[in-house]
């Protein structure tokens, strides 16, 4: 009897707890995340400079303007390039370092921290540091060229090289994060399997190839996922390095949105870019979850 009464008290308490505990998060999330996404879809149908209310409905024209814009095409291609570089250069680099540093030896923990350090630095600071590295007059790279008696290139000033220079910074900044993911995963690998492989006469390379790497597969998929999501939101790094220039050659989709949408207060146009970006993210996340990460 007493237990039952206690139960009822708990139920009443439960409801009031829910009503007390959930609303702050729900409200903030709805107000600043969900509603703006919905509004972006709505605003993207208007030609609107943000003042007053949107009135000039132009349907899907903004989407056409976005796709007609050469700089958007470049930005999209650049986002793909980041993904390619993440897969072809960053991932092997991170994986190989993780395999070396997952072992404990003198200095291994220190090295992990050194490699992880760029990841926690702000993108803005990183971008400024590398705009110094690349500076054609004062930069580190210029000094190397000069020491060979060659004229230093202005990497960030040429549409042909600017984005490649940014890609190097992307690898510099993010490989440590992926390395840490792999190290964390490696430490959960069952040592007895490695032992068994060794007893069966497997070479180190073979046990890497047939035991370690397969058991890392989920983490590799995760790392790829993060690389792609990271690529889609890259912005802070671009601003101090090139601001998307020269001649709009080094934009990412977000820096394109900022430059052509926000700084020109073309709310409809910028919202259309936002909606496109949103769709890419969501479609990608669901397909990836469904097809690539289906084992988990």
């Amino acid at each position, binding site marked *: 009897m007493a237990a039952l009464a206690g139960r009822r008290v708990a139920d009443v308490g439960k409801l009031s707890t829910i009503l007390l505990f959930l609303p702050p998060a729900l409200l903030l999330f709805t107000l600043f995340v969900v509603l703006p996404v919905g509004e972006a879809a709505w605003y993207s149908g208007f030609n609107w400079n943000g*003042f007053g209310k949107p009135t000039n409905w132009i349907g899907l024209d903004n989407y056409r303007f976005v796709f007609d814009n050469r700089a958007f095409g470049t930005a999209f291609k650049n986002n793909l390039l980041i993904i390619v570089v993440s897969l072809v250069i960053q991932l092997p680099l991170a994986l190989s370092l993780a395999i070396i540093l997952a072992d404990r030896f003198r200095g291994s923990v220190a090295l992990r921290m050194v490699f992880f350090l760029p990841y926690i630095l702000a993108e803005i600071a990183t971008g400024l540091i590398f705009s110094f590295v690349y500076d054609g007059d004062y930069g580190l790279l210029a000094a190397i060229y000069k020491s060979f008696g060659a004229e230093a290139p202005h990497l960030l000033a040429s549409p042909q090289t600017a984005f490649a220079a940014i890609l190097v910074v992307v690898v510099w900044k993010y490989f440590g994060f992926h390395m840490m993911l792999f190290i964390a995963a490696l430490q959960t690998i069952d040592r007895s399997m490695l032992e068994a492989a060794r007893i069966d006469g497997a070479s180190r390379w073979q046990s890497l190839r047939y035991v370690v790497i397969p058991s890392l597969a989920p983490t590799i998929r995760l790392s790829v996922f993060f690389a792609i999501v990271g690529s889609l939101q890259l912005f802070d790094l671009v601003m101090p390095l090139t601001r998307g220039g020269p001649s709009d050659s080094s934009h990412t989709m977000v820096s394109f949105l900022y430059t052509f949408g926000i700084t020109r207060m073309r709310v409809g146009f910028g919202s259309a870019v936002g909606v496109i970006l949103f769709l890419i993210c969501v479609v990608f996340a669901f397909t990836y979850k469904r097809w690539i990460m289906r084992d988990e």
Partner: protein
Amino acid sequence: MARFKGLLVSAVALAFSAGAAVAQTTVKWLHIEANPVVVKLWEEVARDFEAKNPGVKVEMQYLENEAYKAKAPTLLQSRDRPHVIYSWAGGVLKSQVEAGVLEDITPAMQGYKDNLSASAVDAFTVDGKIYGVPYGVSQVGFMGNKDLLAKAGVDAGKIVTYDDLLDAVKKLKAAGITPLAVGGADKWPVHFYWTNLAMRLGGKAAIQAALKGQDGGFEGETFQKSGELFKQLVDLQPFQNGFLGFKSQQAIGHFGDGKAAMLLAISSFYHTQKVFAVDKVGIPDDKLAWINFPTVPGGKGQPSDTLGGINGWLVTKGAPKEAVAFLKHFVSAEPQKRLAAGNFIVPVYKGAEAGLGSAFMRNIAQNIANSTYHQNFYDQDLGPSVGRVVNDATTEIAAGTMTPKQAAKAIQDAFRQGN
């Protein structure tokens, strides 16, 4: 609802600031002046104003030119916006007026405005209402380094037609001298070429027709042709190495360091080329030439037409009345004379131009006074969106990533999209 709340909050804020005005009023002044000598002079004027108006404080905030243009549209929407902001007049000003973020200061300008150049006041008048106080005017043309030009056998005084310019560029290239410095990263320095050519080709009539959508608009013959002529120059590779990565200040410094023979410049660069030079001396007066933008054979524009800026200060909605009072003090005889004496600007306060210190600046003032048609910078005149596209597209011509035809089309598309 949210909007209503926003209004309520700003109303309360206004009430508060009005209440506080009795004790202490702060005039928040946002400027983009990068020349420390000028900023120092302004500060003195501001301190002087404070001394004469107890209880009023003038607070200066600096934003770099490009950062300001990027920030302005969002900045103006804030209820805590600065009270006094920089402006190049033109279409950008009009869109700000339409957005309702500026204060109509016509009543406060009565009487006072007669002291100012009428055309400059005109530039800050929209639909009969005055929204800003003009401050200075400028002309766009080539600055030349006489020494470098002479080395290549070029006489600055003989560059009259566009072909003369192309010839000069070829000679300079042959002599191993960088013919032109330009700040391609900021884009607007590049659009001066295209705009100047369009003016020389089509005169005042062409742009007015384009604005009405006649003659094919900005896709019309004049504007395609100006792109093609610009392309002829671009094909000679006249610019400094890596010009697309140079900000305007860096390009000006490049010229001031004597690393390029010419610079398509705003007349106020006369002083900034000294400031941004490594040695802070730059090109001395006797070595510095001014070349009006060359004419184009068969062009409808007059040689005496000028392209240039009309700069001034806007008062934003809800600013305290001291903001206007400060501007009237700031653009008055004494400070304008000091600015003229320092050769920083061509002043708009009547009579102040007599104080211009150098022959170089007196020549500019003369050109503007005698101008048959003074065209404001296109990137400002055509409004915030279209103007930016002009900068984008002309820079693409310079980078070789767009043909003149594509550039003209991009501009016309932007014009059609409006906003």
